[in-house]
């Protein structure tokens, strides 16, 4: 057999990729190339490498599966779904003695994202667990709306970004996923069942390791994915019937969907033959109602709840300036220049890796609220940010490049062979 050539497939290949030791099994890569040690309950060997000032996740996996996942992640990205960004594939790997190695899938590390195990220092508190599951439910609904069947829904296969006190979930592992035109109820239900069992397993594992707060019940908590998902799905897609006189319910439905963070791109309205009852059903909904509006007004690209928070502050700014009649864009521009940017710029350079600017802004608003409460009067935002930067932010961990903590890599398949065949 002739030697195969190393092949790199990437949308924007970085020549520095060639300097990585592709001829070595990923498990044995020298530390000098690694940004951190392995994490996650993973079926495959995964490493984080530093490359031209960025961090890439490298997953060793059969080449055909790597290609499949690479293209799947690209397709999901094109659909504007929250997932990690694929960077490339390295195939044709061979050790110096000619042993063929599996391919590698490269994804960009998602800045300020957190694996679920990094979200608690000692034990996972019930309310944190619930917020993670709520974020995962939103992600799953969004994926299902676009026809993506995940096949391995779990906390481990998800990354979380802080989102104004809540979380936004991102899909990390699309290995088992399939993109269909639409999903059948059976497919959605199966995904949901997988999610519930995996989450319960993950929480039971934390419990067994003494890492789950004693008041949290793994099974009860895992059931939350089902109720949250089902409620959200029903609200986003359900058919609603009402009397002709209750037409306000059309606007009400749209308002509720907006409140949940979704825009209605298409709403089917029909009447019965007599015209006495009306039925409505959203046909196309689009996540990111608030973040799109904020982006349009200010150019800020942030998570949905952060956007909601920022828009609220913008509204408050407008009211306080008595500028309700003025053009929204102009007021937004002023708010950005006079409120948002001064606040986020106050963060010293050495603290910028702690939290994303929009999350800092959210926290400063919270901080101001508490300060005002204590003081018994309104505290100016300038004072709040100074105090926050001095007393709160330095105590927070750096979250810009958290690659995981206290996890075990347990490839089931890859280490097979030593035992098989004996029985």
């Amino acid at each position, binding site marked *: 057999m002739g030697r195969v050539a190393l092949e790199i497939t990437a949308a924007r290949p970085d020549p520095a990729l060639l300097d990585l030791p592709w001829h070595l099994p990923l498990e044995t890569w020298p530390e000098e190339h690694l940004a951190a040690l392995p994490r996650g309950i993973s079926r495959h060997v995964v490493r984080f490498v530093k490359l031209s000032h960025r961090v890439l996740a490298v997953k060793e996996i059969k080449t055909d599966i790597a290609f499949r996942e690479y293209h799947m992640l690209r397709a999901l990205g094109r659909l504007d779904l929250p997932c990690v960004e694929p960077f490339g594939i390295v195939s044709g790997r061979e050790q110096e003695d000619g042993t063929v190695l599996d391919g590698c899938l490269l994804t960009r590390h998602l800045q300020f994202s957190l694996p679920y195990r990094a979200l608690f220092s000692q034990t996972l508190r019930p309310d944190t667990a619930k917020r993670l599951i709520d974020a995962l439910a939103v992600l799953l609904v969004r994926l299902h709306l676009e026809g993506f069947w995940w*096949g391995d829904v779990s906390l481990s296969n998800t990354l979380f970004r802080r989102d104004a006190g809540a979380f936004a979930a991102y899909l990390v592992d699309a290995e088992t996923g399939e993109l269909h035109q639409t999903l*059948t109820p059976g497919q959605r239900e199966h995904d949901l069942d997988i999610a519930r069992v995996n989450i*319960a397993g*993950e929480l*039971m594992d934390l419990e067994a390791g003494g890492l789950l707060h004693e008041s949290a019940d793994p*099974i009860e908590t895992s059931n939350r994915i089902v109720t949250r998902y089902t409620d959200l799905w029903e609200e986003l897609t359900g058919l609603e019937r009402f009397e002709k006189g209750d037409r306000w319910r059309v606007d009400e439905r749209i308002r509720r969907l907006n409140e949940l963070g979704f825009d209605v791109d298409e709403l089917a309205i029909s009447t019965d033959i007599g015209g006495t009852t009306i039925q409505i059903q959203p046909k196309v909904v689009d996540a990111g109602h608030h973040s799109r509006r904020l982006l349009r007004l200010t150019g800020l690209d942030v998570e949905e709840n952060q956007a909601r928070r920022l828009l609220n502050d913008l509204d408050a700014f407008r009211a306080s300036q008595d500028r309700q009649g003025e053009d929204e864009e102009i007021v937004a521009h002023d708010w950005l220049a006079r409120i948002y940017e001064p606040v986020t710029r106050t963060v010293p350079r050495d603290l910028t890796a702690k939290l994303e600017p929009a999350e800092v802004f959210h926290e400063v608003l919270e901080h101001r609220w508490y300060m005002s409460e204590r003081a018994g009067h309104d505290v100016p935002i300038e004072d709040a940010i100074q105090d926050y930067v001095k007393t709160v932010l330095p105590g927070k961990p750096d979250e810009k490049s958290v690659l995981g903590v206290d996890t075990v890599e347990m490839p089931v398949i890859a*280490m097979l*062979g030593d035992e098989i065949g004996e029985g």
Partner: protein
Amino acid sequence: MATVKFDEATRIYPGNDIPSVDKLNIDIADGEFLVLVGPSGCGKSTSLRMLAGLEEVNDGKIWIGDRDVTNLSPKDRDVAMVFQNYALYPHMTVADNMGFALKIAGVDKSEITKRVKEAAKILDLEPYLERKPKALSGGQRQRVAMGRAIVRQPQVFLMDEPLSNLDAKLRVQTRTQIASLQRRLGVTTVYVTHDQIEAMTMGDRVAVLKDGILQQCDTPRRMYDHPNNVFVAGFIGSPAMNLLDVAVVDGGVKLGTGTYPVARDHLKDAHGRSVTMGVRPEDLDLTTEGNGIPVVVDVVEELGADAYIYGTAKDAHQHQDYDESGGDLPERPFIARVDGRRPPQKGETVYLAPKEGHVHMFDTENGLRLGD
């Protein structure tokens, strides 16, 4: 445990005119290991998912035992998809890793313990039940993952290309293990693969699909010895069966300059003046010039006792119709197994004659098997 029945089961994807699975009929016996096999897009995975409840059934029915499950949700069907997610949890014992899904399902604690013990016995994991997965070897971890499906005691196991992420060597080992485990458990199993070798080595019966249509469902032996059509003939067996078009003549078919005798009855249903003859590589003998099929040897693969020759047969030149069309004669790859001690040389022309009674005849027009 249960039987499974696909009864005219049909799946048409929205926006498609052609069914992805077209009137599938298969009766699977209680405890049987049935493998669905075929090339990509043949409908094998769709069929499995119809059984699992993940794909809608647009027409026909699916039965598990005496229950019509056509419209039941996946979790009400009492089937288990195996190997979908096999993460092991590091802080939990082997017993808990195997039994935790039962806990979620609300199964009684003593019942969980009982089922986990039973499964551990079958999987040779009894001594390790209180250990953590980290203390296990790779193979044992694999069995823990299998144990998770076994303790559920489903009526049917469903496996969709479970070995696709293994390398070739591990694939062979694991398929042996799955097949033997299935026989020990005796649970009806439906297994999907694109690999005909996997299908033939694992299944009690194999169902070959192509373009959404069941081509044949038989035991591996019957499938190999008696393919119902040209597609199955070419798909099952490795190396593949040689297929060549031959002219029908008095007393048989024309082969090289001679005639290969075929009973008249065998050919009476043929539509054209030529038929497709199939002969497996091991069913050929070397013969002398002028007898049999001339084959130019391209590659010789020596395996010790046997050798395989890969060559090119000019198979159609016997036929008038082809001669008249002008141009180059069609060349077909041709494979034969010969004695490993005296294999022919590369570049040599050899003459190969089918062993008597070991040819398969197919109608060239519709591909169907002719005669018995």
